[in-house]
């Protein structure tokens, strides 16, 4: 990705990226274009190159930033009304690490408001369109980031994955998307959704680029005490011999297109000499219910900070102190934000805690144990990312449960803290991209990336 020779300048790369961003304006990818800032930084980098000074590993590489990463360029809105006026006075650790290597942020990307959604239709700024079919959704919640990379506007984009928000849009747009092991990349300066599953990751066009970005951003951060001690660069990619497939996912819920894509890939793996191991993981069918108990509970807690007082939107319909909270939150949140906050408060409330929240945390233990057992039998697991390819705009947005069901294959690994990498798996007869995900044990991120290189 680096500007290795002097045939192209950072300024030219940024100008091209901005021109493409404008060309594809109707896809509604960006919530903010960093024209002035990006060109200024590009000029500085070009000057340093001309002077023979040292530049970073990502010198002049244009990238897109999901709108829930705090940075001083533009407003960090999480694609919500309640944070629409919010201009961050701090920079996220992950952003700082990218900028220290001289990457250039050309814009902030659209997402489901507060990352609540699987299609980017829950954005306050309207949906992002799929890169292959404008009548279909981009996937979500990191839809803008996925489409920015798929349409070749930028070399890479950041994302967050709480239950599939990187892997599913990567699959819907035919690119690579990595959700690392829980705790790998600092979350300092990234807007919290569900603290026990939130992860930061990337969208790229190649596994090699993913490796480079991981090497730059992974690592312990004193500002995020939930970061693991540095392991990524020290870890060795394990040679993959046995690939697991999950029998329990082989059911009517999976569309023929995804079943077919998996079958083709499995046949190819067999021919290449890999051993295919069938896994039975009966607890996984409860993972979605577990997820939609635990995650809303954490959302209800994390989003209680948006009170209309210290920062963000404050309603004009204020009569007293109480109404600052209730009116600002009522007007500032989307319906899906409200549903999740209310479900969270329901499962945590007196009389329901044991039946829902505690029960879900116990089920979570069973799911983790099933993965531990599975990785005694295989090196990596291969599954679809979601049951369907990109669906039509408006098809599911008014039926929350049918939207949640799109997450059925992506959420289990978030509950267990495992890494997952979406790899492109061709195009279906409908002309839509399909993707599959590779899943490994904790800290096997490098193995997944390396295996993806082998599968190219």
């Amino acid at each position, binding site marked *: 990705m680096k500007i290795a020779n002097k045939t192209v300048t950072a300024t030219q790369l940024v100008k091209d990226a901005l021109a493409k961003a404008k060309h594809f304006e109707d896809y509604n990818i960006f919530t903010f274009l960093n024209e002035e800032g990006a060109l200024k930084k590009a000029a500085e980098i070009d000057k340093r190159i001309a002077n023979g000074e040292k530049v970073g590993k990502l010198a002049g590489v244009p990238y897109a930033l999901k709108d829930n990463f705090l940075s001083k360029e533009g407003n960090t809105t999480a694609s919500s009304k309640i944070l629409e006026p919010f201009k961050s*006075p*701090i920079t996220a650790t992950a952003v700082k690490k990218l900028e220290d290597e001289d990457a250039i942020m050309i814009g902030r990307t659209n997402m489901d408001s507060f990352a609540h959604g699987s299609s980017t239709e829950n954005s306050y700024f309207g949906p992002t369109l799929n890169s292959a079919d404008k009548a279909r959704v981009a996937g979500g919640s990191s839809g803008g980031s996925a489409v920015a990379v798929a349409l070749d506007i930028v070399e890479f984009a950041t994302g967050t994955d709480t239950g599939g928000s990187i892997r599913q849009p990567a699959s819907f747009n035919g690119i690579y998307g990595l959700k690392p092991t*829980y705790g790998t990349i600092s979350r300092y300066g990234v807007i919290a959704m569900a603290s*026990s*599953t939130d992860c930061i990751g990337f969208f790229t066009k190649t596994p090699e680029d993913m490796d480079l970005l991981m090497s730059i951003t992974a690592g312990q951060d004193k500002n995020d005490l*939930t970061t*693991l001690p540095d392991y990524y660069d020290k870890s060795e990619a394990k040679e993959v011999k046995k690939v697991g497939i999950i029998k329990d996912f082989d059911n009517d819920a999976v569309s023929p297109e995804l079943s077919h894509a998996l079958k083709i890939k499995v046949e190819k793996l067999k021919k290449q000499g890999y051993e295919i191991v069938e896994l039975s993981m009966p*607890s996984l069918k*409860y993972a*979605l*219910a*577990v997820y*939609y*108990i635990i995650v809303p509970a954490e959302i*209800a807690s994390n989003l*209680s900070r948006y*009170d*209309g*007082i*210290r*920062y963000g939107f*404050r309603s004009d319909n*204020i*009569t*007293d*102190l109480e*109404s*600052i909270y*209730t*009116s600002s*939150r*009522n007007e500032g*949140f989307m*319906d899906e934000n*409200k*549903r999740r*906050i*209310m*479900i969270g*408060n*329901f*499962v945590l*409330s007196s009389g329901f805690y044991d*039946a*829902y929240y*505690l*029960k*879900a*945390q*116990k*089920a979570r*233990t*069973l799911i*983790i144990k099933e993965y531990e057992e599975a990785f005694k039998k295989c090196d990596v697991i291969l599954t679809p990312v979601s049951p369907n390819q990109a669906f039509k705009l408006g098809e599911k947005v008014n039926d*929350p*449960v049918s939207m*949640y069901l799109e997450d059925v294959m992506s959420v289990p690994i978030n*509950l*267990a*803290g495992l890494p997952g990498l979406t790899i492109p798996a061709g195009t279906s007869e409908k002309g839509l991209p399909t993707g599959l995900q590779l899943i490994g044990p904790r800290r096997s991120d490098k193995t997944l990336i390396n295996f993806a290189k082998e599968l190219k």
Partner: protein
Amino acid sequence: MDTSDKQIEHLAKLSDFSLSEKDSKSLGKDLESIINYISQLDELDTKDVEPTYQVFEMENVWRDDEIIPQEATREELLALSKEQEDNQIKIPKVL
């Protein structure tokens, strides 16, 4: 679960929302279908299973008790609020 109007009102209060009657009705319907879905967990036997609250393997991450310089200044942080007066965030009167 029966999501009566009273229960929705209670959840809205816990969540700090002032919902219109129309929103209460439509959110109530959505919440009912979500709760029906998550209730399938009843089938799963979790007797003698320990709960998992986090998947971070470490415990007790200590740091020295010292003041660390912050990136944002007091002025920048105050400026994020809608109204200020005398270096304080202004809100309507409480009493």
